[in-house]
Structure formats: structure tokens, C-alpha cells
């Protein structure tokens, strides 16, 4: 561990605020810095200092500002500095919570998130199980397709889906019209909110499934074959084996993936924003875009902050579950 202590001085990058030794030292003969071995209590904090500094400055302060903003009245004149922000107590929250539009946005966000997460997890699990059944070549093909879609920048994926679902020239309308009795030529998927959000959900799921499949596949390889074998001998069917053997063993991974998915899917922004050309209609508004709209379109920064804060609070429960899981894993080592 004292190795780590001295590397602080030896690492080439210069962002070391608490540098203790000669900064240029790159030789392996480590110019053991000033801090004596006894300084071991301070060492980890010195190592952490730059990281904590950045996080506190650029995350902690805005987080504090987010909270304080939502208790203030902050509009355009405050932005330009003509007026001091005024403390208004719970006014912003009272306004939001008393607004029917807000509640419909909350409901839509919850439905969207639940839908996307359930679809992601179910499809992900099915594909992960399928990967165990197919031959090597097919497995490789699916893996490549998965990683390619995982690696696609969200913004590019959104552009591609916009093209696939285009009303006039979109290939999806064409394909669906080939089915007997279906005429979808010229069908505008974004004319109605629910349908448009379904397309966006599909886009989110398409991007999220690969991570789930690859993580679950890794987990599946760790399920002891003997256990499955034993369960089968005891008369369990395929579904029984899955429910009573595979699922319990995969549970930690599934909890982690589900919580992560909830957090990610609730934070969906560019997909909606870009699909609706930077100006989502009321029917497409999710909590994230709604908060953005309040702040930067209506110029009510405090109202927008209050909405964002409510979003964060809604997520806290999920985050707590995720953290517990991660800490459990962390304690193993």
C-alpha cells in the first residue's frame, strides 16, 4: 500500500493538486517524497483530494444550487442580474403540485419508465437464454449486432430511428404494409403521443438490451451445472429450473440491472428532444423535458429546478436499492 503512497508523486499527469514529491519523477527509482511512512493516515485523503475537489465543485455546488433555486423565484431578470433572487418558500412546489399538467407528466414518465425497464429486462433475459441454445456462429452474429447497437451514440440511434419510422419514406411503414390487410403508407407515428412514445421506448429498449444481455450471459455462465442437473433429476421442468435455480442465483445481477435501468430510463432526454425536433409537444413531455422546457423555454428557472428536484426525489428509493447492492459487492473484497 505504500506503493500507492509514492505513486502520487510519480504519475505523469499534472492534475495533482497535493503533489508531494518532485512532479517530474518518472523513473522507477521513485524519489520517495517527503511524507514519512507514518503519514499513512493522510495519504488516502491526499490521493482522494483532487477527485473530491472536482466532484464537490462541479456536482456538490450545483446540487445545492438546484435545491436553493427551487425555493426561490428566479426568472429572466434574475439571470441577467437585474434583480436579486427572492426566497419564496414552497411556492414553486405548491404551483407544480397543484398543476394537473405536472401530474399527467409524472404519470406518463412512470408508465414510460416501467414499460421500458420491463421490456428491456424481459427481452434481455430471453436473448441471454437463447444465446446458450444457439450454435457458435449464430451466437457470434447476435453478439456483434448487440455490441454494435450498444456502441451506437444515442444521438445517432435517434436519427436512425427517426428515419426508420418516417411517415413518407420510412422503411417500417413499407414493411408493415406488406402484411396482408395492413396499410401503413404515410402513417405518422408521431401524430399521437402514446404511439410516438412507443417508438421512443423501442429506441430506448434497443439501446439498453445489449448491456443487459451481455451482463446476464456472464452471470449465466456462473450458474453451477450440477445444481440444474440436480433440480432436473428432482423432476423440475425447464421453467422450474429457471425459477428455482437460475433466477435466485442471478438475483443480485438482476437487481442491479433493474435499478440501473430505472435510473437511466427515467433520465431519457435526447431521444425525446431530438425525435420531436427540439420542441416536444405536450403529449410527449416527460419529467426531464418538462423541467428543461420550464427553465429554458418559459424562462422559469426556479420552477424547472423544482421539477428536477422532484424527479431526483422520485428516484431516491431506486438509488438506495442499487447502492445497497453495490456495497454488498464492494464488501466482498
Amino acid at each position, binding site marked *: 500500500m505504500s506503493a*500507492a503512497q509514492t505513486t502520487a508523486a*510519480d504519475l505523469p*499527469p499534472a492534475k*495533482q493538486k497535493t503533489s508531494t514529491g518532485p512532479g517530474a519523477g518518472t523513473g*522507477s527509482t*521513485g524519489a520517495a517524497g517527503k511524507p514519512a511512512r507514518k503519514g*499513512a493516515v493522510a495519504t*488516502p485523503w491526499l490521493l*482522494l483530494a*483532487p*477527485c473530491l475537489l*472536482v*466532484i464537490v465543485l*462541479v*456536482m456538490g455546488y450545483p*446540487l445545492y*444550487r*438546484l435545491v436553493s433555486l427551487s425555493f426561490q423565484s428566479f426568472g429572466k431578470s434574475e*439571470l441577467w442580474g437585474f434583480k436579486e433572487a427572492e426566497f419564496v418558500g414552497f411556492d414553486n412546489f405548491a404551483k407544480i403540485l397543484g398543476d394537473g399538467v405536472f401530474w399527467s407528466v409524472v404519470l406518463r414518465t412512470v408508465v414510460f419508465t416501467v414499460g421500458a425497464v420491463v421490456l428491456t429486462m424481459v427481452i434481455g433475459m430471453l*436473448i441471454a437464454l*437463447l*444465446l*446458450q*441454445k444457439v*450454435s457458435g456462429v*449464430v451466437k457470434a*452474429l*447476435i453478439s456483434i449486432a448487440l*455490441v*454494435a447497437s450498444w*456502441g451506437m*451514440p444515442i444521438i*445517432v440511434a435517434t*436519427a*436512425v430511428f427517426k*428515419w426508420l419510422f418516417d411517415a413518407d*419514406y420510412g422503411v417500417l411503414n*413499407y414493411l408493415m404494409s406488406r402484411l396482408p390487410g395492413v396499410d401503413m403508407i404515410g402513417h405518422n407515428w408521431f401524430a399521437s403521443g402514446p404511439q410516438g412514445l412507443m417508438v421512443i421506448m423501442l429506441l430506448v429498449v434497443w439501446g439498453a438490451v445489449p*448491456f443487459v444481455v451481455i*451482463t446476464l450471459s456472464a452471470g449465466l455462465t456462473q450458474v453451477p451445472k450440477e445444481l*440444474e442437473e440436480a433440480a432436473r433429476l428432482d423432476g423440475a421442468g*425447464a421453467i422450474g429450473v429457471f425459477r428455482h435455480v437460475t433466477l435466485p*442465483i442471478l438475483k443480485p*445481477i438482476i437487481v*442491479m440491472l433493474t435499478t440501473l435501468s430505472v*435510473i437511466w430510463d427515467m*433520465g431519457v*432526454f*435526447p431521444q425525446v*428532444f*431530438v425525435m420531436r425536433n427540439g420542441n416536444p409537444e405536450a403529449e410527449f413531455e416527460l419529467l426531464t423535458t418538462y423541467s*428543461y422546457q420550464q*427553465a*429554458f423555454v418559459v424562462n422559469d428557472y426556479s420552477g424547472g429546478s423544482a421539477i*428536477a428536484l422532484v424527479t431526483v426525489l422520485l428516484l431516491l428509493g431506486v*438509488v438506495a436499492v*442499487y447502492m445497497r447492492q453495490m*456495497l454488498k459487492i*464492494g464488501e466482498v*473484497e
Partner: protein
Amino acid sequence: MTLTTPSTRKGGTSRLGWNVIGLLVFAVVGFPVYWMLNTAFKPAKDAIDPSPQFFPRTFTLDNFRRALEISDFWGPVGRSLIVSLVVVVIGIAVGLLAALAISRFAFRGRKIVIVGILAVQMVPLVAMIIPVFLLLNDLGQYDKLTGLIITYLTFILPFTVWTLRGFIVNIPKELEEAAQVDGCTPTGAFLRVVFPLLAPGMVATSVYGFIQAWNEYLYALMLMSQQNQTATVWLGNFTTKNGTEFAPMMAGSTMMAIPIVVLFLIVQRKMAAGLTAGAVKG
């Protein structure tokens, strides 16, 4: 019909059935990427053919030419490169120090730091855009690459620290100690024993961080003006009031996606392992 055994030698026909389903899954998952490439390389007028061709017949680079002339491409790409590279270099340096602290030292408050870092990672970035915008506005950092770099650092760092920690704890302490017994200085032990083992993990983490920074959209949109837009925002230029030029947009998408997807293919395996290391044991 056993769902969980990897090889049921008996059922040759059922294996065939699974393979057919597998190929279907492959086609569905891969189709959007295929269609992007297909559209990018065919003449723009074929792209709006009412009965589209699924297999390429003619090959053209016209869409790429058009994509490059719609608005400046290399400027945004250059800016994205600068931002992503600087973020990764600083992020890895700072992150490695922090990762060493929480993985190789036992100290009071270690757990709080870990919880804190994990918690920061969980704050939805979208929720922070308003205060970050106001903060950078106050600091005179609106429309500056430095402002964007500092902002990206905060979302790269927690992830970097956590992943590097995962790689470090997998390197047995005993290796280091053995090297010291053999006469290495602590620094020497780290540089000769731990560092080489950590290097692949660091490369993977850097590449992943680079991809994250490169792909970011919302902050790039809000914190930079039109003249200083980055690569992701550039892609919005294909949609104007007169509609969207899809074929050039797909060409632009291809140019943006291919390098990233290739990078991703290279590091993906390593990252997936790092992200969930030990999850099953939990």
C-alpha cells in the same frame, strides 16, 4: 425442451429451431445499423423510393459529400476530440489516485467516500442542467470548451474511480509485497508489478470515458453556441424547417458512429467484466 442446459446433444432439430430464432433476433437487432449504412451509401433519390431496395445495387459517396457541405464538419469534430481527450486524460489521472485510495488503504470514512462516489454517479445529469448552466454563466464559462470539460469530468470521474477500483482489487496485494521483499522500493513495486497489470484496464476505462464524453448531447447543446457546436449537436443540422435530408443524415450518422462503434467493440468485453465483477458472489 430444456431451457438452461447449453448443449442438449439429443435434440438436433430443437437446436435448429433455436438457431432460426437466433438468426431472427440477429436480423431485428442489427437492422437499424444495417439500414443506416444501406441508406448512407445509396443515391439520395433511391432512399426516397416508395418501394425501398433492401440490398445495395448502386454505391455512391454523394451523401457523404453532401453531409460535409451542409455545415462545417471538422470544426465540431475537432472540438469534440479536444473535449473528450482532455476529459479522459484528467479523469484517468485523478480517478486512478482516488481508486488507489479506496482500494489499497483502510481509513476512516472510506465507506462514506465510496457511497458518495456511487451516489454522485446516480444523480440524473438532466436534473443538473439548470444549476450547471447558471454556474457556468456566472463564471463566464458559457460557450467555452473549458466549461464543458469541467462539466464532463464530473460524470466521467465517479465511473472511472469505480471501474479502476474494480481492476485494482483484482490485482493481489501479495504480488506487490513480494516485489518489495525482493528489494523493490514501494514505487518500483507499483510501477513494475501493479502498473503493467492495470494498464489494460486503464486503457479500457479511458476508451469508455472517451466514448461517453464524445456522445454527450444535452450539455453540449446547452453550454455551447451554434458556432462552437460539438459533433453530436452537428447531427441536428440536417433537419431544417423544410424537412430532414435523411440520406445525408445517415451518411453523417455513419461517420459519427463507425469510429465509436469500432472503439467500443475493442473495449466492450473488458468493460462488461469490470462493471459487474463480483456481482454474482454478492
